[in-house]
């Protein structure tokens, strides 16, 4: 067990994967000499050389597409897209190529690649560097979507992603890189596709992932003082979605809140809520509540930025109102 950060845990996962598997290569902007825009790949160029830690020019469609071709040809590439906001530039390669190759070609070949990227607010990075776009990828069958919310998952979920046969969009949160936590690299990697109950409780189910996990846990702690026990579920992967854990909890509590940083309309919270409504209808005591990002671009002013996404205070308040 070590005490480390989200950032260092991610780097360690890459390092261990590269030590174990010579076909793992890293491709992306500033991943080598610079060490990664957020420092995740620091030191890997020195350890593994430029044949395996490949600095790309600013050509998102080109290098993500190259990763797709490399994954079809015997390598296991990790492409780093510096911000998830840039995925629009590479979206044809992600959504029309990587996601569909196995299906279109009748299962002959897959695309075992990980697209590491990061999103979210918290660094006053403004409208084109702060979005939570996981919902875009959920609309594309063939793509896996993983979002680590803890230091341990930064390591173990990335390791599990690197074992997948299909393309994984692995979305880190920029505000979590400095988060400290405990990591045991020797324990088994994340149970792929399974959510984790981070805090048990019988009164209300809070379904979330990524940084909102931290917020939900803080809110659960706040309401515990008022005798309200919130069960907090960390989904960890949106595709696959661990429905058993969600429905098991909601059928027990009868109340569900879905918390995402992604925008409200047409977003992941809408999909999860619709599913709870369809499948747990008989057990629901109250309406399902979505607490999601405002339907606005992210502003640079810190005071506005913080208000564009759910806050701990808001989650606390809503839990208390729902459980009377």
């Amino acid at each position, binding site marked *: 067990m070590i005490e480390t950060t989200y950032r260092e845990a991610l780097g360690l996962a890459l390092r261990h994967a590269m030590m174990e598997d010579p076909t793992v290569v890293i491709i992306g902007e500033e991943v080598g000499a610079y060490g990664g825009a957020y420092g995740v790949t620091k030191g890997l160029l020195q350890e593994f050389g430029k044949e395996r830690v490949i600095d790309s020019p600013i050509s998102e469609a080109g*290098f993500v597409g190259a990763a797709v071709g490399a994954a079809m040809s*015997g390598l296991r590439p990790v492409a780093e897209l510096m911000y998830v906001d840039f995925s629009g530039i590479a979206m044809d*390669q992600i959504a029309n*190529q990587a996601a569909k190759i*196995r299906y279109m070609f009748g299962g*002959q070949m897959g695309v075992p690649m990980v697209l590491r990227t990061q999103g979210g607010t918290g660094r006053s990075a403004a409208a084109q560097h702060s979005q939570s776009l996981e919902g875009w990828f959920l609309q594309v069958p063939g793509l896996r979507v993983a979002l680590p919310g803890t230091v341990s998952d930064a390591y173990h979920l990335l390791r599990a992603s690197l074992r997948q046969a299909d393309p994984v969009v692995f979305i880190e949160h920029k505000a979590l890189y400095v988060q400290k936590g405990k990591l045991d690299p020797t324990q088994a990697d994340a149970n792929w596709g399974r959510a984790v109950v981070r805090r048990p409780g019988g009164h209300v189910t809070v379904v979330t992932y990524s940084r909102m996990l931290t917020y939900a846990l803080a809110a659960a702690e706040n309401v515990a003082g008022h005798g309200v026990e919130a069960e907090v579920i960390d989904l960890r992967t949106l595709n696959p979605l661990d429905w058993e854990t969600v429905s098991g909890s909601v059928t027990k509590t009868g109340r569900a809140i879905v918390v995402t940083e992604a925008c409200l309309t047409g977003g992941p919270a809408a999909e999860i809520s619709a599913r709870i409504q369809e499948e747990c*209808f008989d057990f629901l005591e109250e309406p399902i509540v979505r607490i999601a990002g405002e339907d606005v671009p992210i502003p640079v002013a810190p005071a506005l930025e913080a208000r564009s996404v759910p806050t701990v205070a808001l989650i606390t308040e809503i839990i208390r109102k729902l459980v009377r």
Partner: protein
Amino acid sequence: MRPTKEQSLEVYRRMRRIRTFEERVGELFVRQQTAGSMLHLSIAEEAAAVGVTYPMREGDSFTTHHRGHGIFLARGADPKRMMAEIAGKADGYCRGKGGSMHIADRTLGHLGANAIVGGGIPAVVGAGLSYKVLAKPNVSIAFFGDGAMQQGVLYESMNLAALWRLPVVFVCVNNQWGMGTRIDRAAANTQFHERARTFGLEGHVVDGADVFAVIDIAERLVQGARDGRAAYLSVECYRYYGHARMDKSPYRTPEEEAEGRKQDPIQRAITRLREKDGATTGEFEAIDAAIAQEMDEAVEFAINAAPPPVTDLFRDVYDDHEPAPEPLRKRLERILTTNLTATN
């Protein structure tokens, strides 16, 4: 290349095979009464397909555009399985899931035809990268049409291939027309090979009616690519017919079409074989008859083949070891059985 008569006849045979395939493939849709709108023929582009693939070896790979039947046939595809795929049958190369525009075969190095203009180009950069990292002596070739010359991802790919010194060749099968837009309405400078040179690639242009000229330049460029010098080649030809099966190209003048259709690589090869090698009508007829029979069999095979089972709809979205998506009806039944409590 100074080919022997046998080699020249083989080159002719490969081109004739493509021509006959393309002349016959439309029958699938007529006889089955299915739409088949997405069928793009490569007639008169046979020299690009046969010439560029000539120096390719086992283990080499390629991607193609939507007009790629000929290239795949030139690399050794089985016309039975191709026709079955185009007809959407389970015995097709992709189990009837891909069709004409998404045909692929891993064993022959075909990393996929693509229906997004330029979409398959960066994959060869990745394949080339893997050959370099894994120290394999192979090349990867991207085939695309002149429409892709105006797509940004091509230039990203050219730059990466040159920068990383990858075993990659970019081949533009320039048939002058991107759907209903002629190249001079798509680009101010249509000397496309000049663009490639500015990226540090070897850039060349060759007459696509002269298959032996295509072979010559392809042999040089493919060998150069194996040595880490990425290259670009424009093969100049003319799209004989419409963009897709139902397009009669009303946007072109009869005069232009008549002039363009003089550029027939097969007629050119026949003339050369007769004049240089003394090939006889009987020799051509024997080759043509064998091909006609092969394509007859392919058409019948495809028409008689079974469609994929409906359960295949959910297969291969993810790896075999993963659960398949839940079918809609099954999900609805489950929800309604569990939750409809008011009336039943």
